[in-house]
C-alpha cells in the first residue's frame, strides 16, 4: 500500500514533527507541574496553525485572532487534562475548531447551514483540467504572488470543503481527527476532501496559463515547456 503520504514527505512538516516530541513532552510536563511561564514557549510553534484553523472557519481576521487567543487560554486552563497519547498540536487545533464553531453558531443561522451541507455531496466531481502537471517545486512558495493565488483559490471553495481541506492537508489532522473536530462523519470528510483537492487542482491549473507557475525555477535538466 504504500505510497508515502506527500504531506508527511513535506520536509518542513516532517522536520517539525521529528524535532518536537522530547522537548515538547518536557515542556508539557513542566507546565502541568505548575511552571505557567513556560506555556507560551510550549504553544508558540503552533500559534500560526491555531490562527489558520480559526480563520478557515470564521473567515474574519479579527474574529479568528480573538478565537485563537481564547482557544489558547482554554488550552492553558485544561492543560492537566491533556494526555500524552494524543498529539499536542492536534489537541490545540481541536480546541480551536471547537471554539470557532461555537462562535459561528452564536453569530449565524445554523438551520440554513444544515440544509446547505446536504447539497453537492450527492453528485461526484469531474475534473475539468487535464494539462500535464509537473512537480511544482516548493521554492514556488517563496513568491508572494504564488502564495496569494493559492490563498485565493482556497478562499473560493465552499466552506464545508475549505474547512476539511484546511484541517486535513494544512493542519495535518488525520481523517478521524478531522471528523471529530468538525462533528461530521468520516465518510463526509473523505468525500469533501476529495472534492476540495480536485477543485483546487482545477483552480491551480490556471497557474500555467496565467504564468504564475511558469516563471518558477525548474530543476536542472528539465524544461518548463
Amino acid at each position, binding site marked *: *500500500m*504504500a*505510497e508515502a*503520504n*506527500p*504531506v508527511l*514527505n513535506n520536509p*518542513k*512538516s516532517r522536520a517539525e514533527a521529528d524535532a518536537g516530541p522530547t522537548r515538547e513532552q518536557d515542556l508539557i510536563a513542566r507546565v502541568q507541574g505548575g511552571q*505557567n*511561564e513556560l*506555556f*507560551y514557549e510550549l504553544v*508558540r510553534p503552533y*500559534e*500560526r*496553525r491555531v*490562527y*489558520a484553523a480559526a480563520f478557515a472557519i470564521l473567515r474574519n*481576521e479579527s474574529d479568528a*485572532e480573538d478565537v*485563537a*487567543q481564547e482557544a*489558547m*487560554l482554554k488550552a*492553558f*486552563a485544561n492543560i492537566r487534562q491533556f494526555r500524552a497519547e494524543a498529539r499536542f498540536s492536534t489537541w490545540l487545533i481541536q480546541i480551536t475548531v471547537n471554539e470557532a464553531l461555537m462562535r459561528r453558531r452564536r453569530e449565524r443561522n445554523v438551520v440554513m447551514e444544515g440544509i446547505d451541507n446536504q447539497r453537492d455531496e450527492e453528485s*461526484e*466531481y*469531474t*475534473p475539468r*483540467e*487535464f*494539462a*500535464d*502537471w*509537473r*512537480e511544482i517545486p*516548493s521554492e*514556488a*512558495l*517563496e513568491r508572494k504572488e504564488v*502564495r496569494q493565488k*493559492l*490563498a485565493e483559490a*482556497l478562499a473560493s471553495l465552499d466552506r464545508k470543503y475549505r474547512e476539511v481541506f484546511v484541517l486535513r*492537508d*494544512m493542519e*495535518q489532522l488525520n*481523517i478521524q481527527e478531522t471528523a471529530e473536530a468538525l462533528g461530521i462523519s468520516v465518510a463526509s470528510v*473523505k468525500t469533501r*476532501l*476529495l472534492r476540495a*483537492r*480536485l477543485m*483546487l*487542482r*482545477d483552480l*491551480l*491549473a490556471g497557474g500555467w496559463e496565467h504564468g504564475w507557475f511558469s516563471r518558477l525555477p525548474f530543476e536542472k535538466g528539465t524544461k518548463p515547456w
Partner: protein
Amino acid sequence: MVSGEDVKPNGMSCETVWREVSSYVDGEVGVGLRTEMDEHIRGCRRCASVLEGTRNVIRLYSDERMIEAPAGFGKRLEKRLARNARVSPRSWSSWSAWLVPVAAVLLFALGLRLANTYTAERALRSQLAQAARAIPPDLQVVVSDDAKVFHVPGCDFIHNKNKLRTMTAKEAIRDGYVPCSRCMRKYLEATTAGRSQPSSEITDADADDVTGGQ
C-alpha cells in the same frame, strides 16, 4: 469536459480513479485497488494529470509557508496569555524579569550623570548673575573655590588670589561660575574690535601674580 466512459483495458474507468485518487494519495486504498489504479494511470494521460495535480495541491498547501497570521499576532497572544493566564512573557525567566526595570533606571541615572558631566551646566553660583554667553570656550580663565566668578588671568578684581585655579571658560561655566563683569567685558570688547589680546589694563605682572598664586 471529459465523459466518464473512458475505460482502460483492465476494466477500471477514469471515474473510478477520480473517485479514489484522494485515498490513493493518502495511502488508504487496498493493494488490489492500488495495483489496478497504477495500471490504469500508466496508460491514461488524463488520470496521470489528475494524480499529479492532486499531489501538487497537497504538497503546496501543506507547506508551513502557506500558514500565515497577521503581523504582531504572536506578540498580542503572548500579552493576552500574560494578562489572563499569568503566563510570563517568554525569554525572561522569573529571576531576571525584575532586572529589566532596574537596569533601565540605572541606565537612565547613568545617562543623566554623563549628561551633567559633559554638557549641562550646574546651577549658577550667583543667582543675581547673568549666565555667560559668547565667551570662547577654550579661553583660559581663573577661578577660586570660594568665589562665584571667573576672570581673565590678571584681572584686578580677583579675590583670594592665593586659591586660584586655571581652567577653560567652558569648564568654569559648567561648574556654575559666572563671568567677571569687568575683565571679561573688556576681553570681549577687545576681541570684538579685532584685537586678540585682552585689555591692556591687564598687565603681565598681574598675570604672573595670578598664575603664581596657584
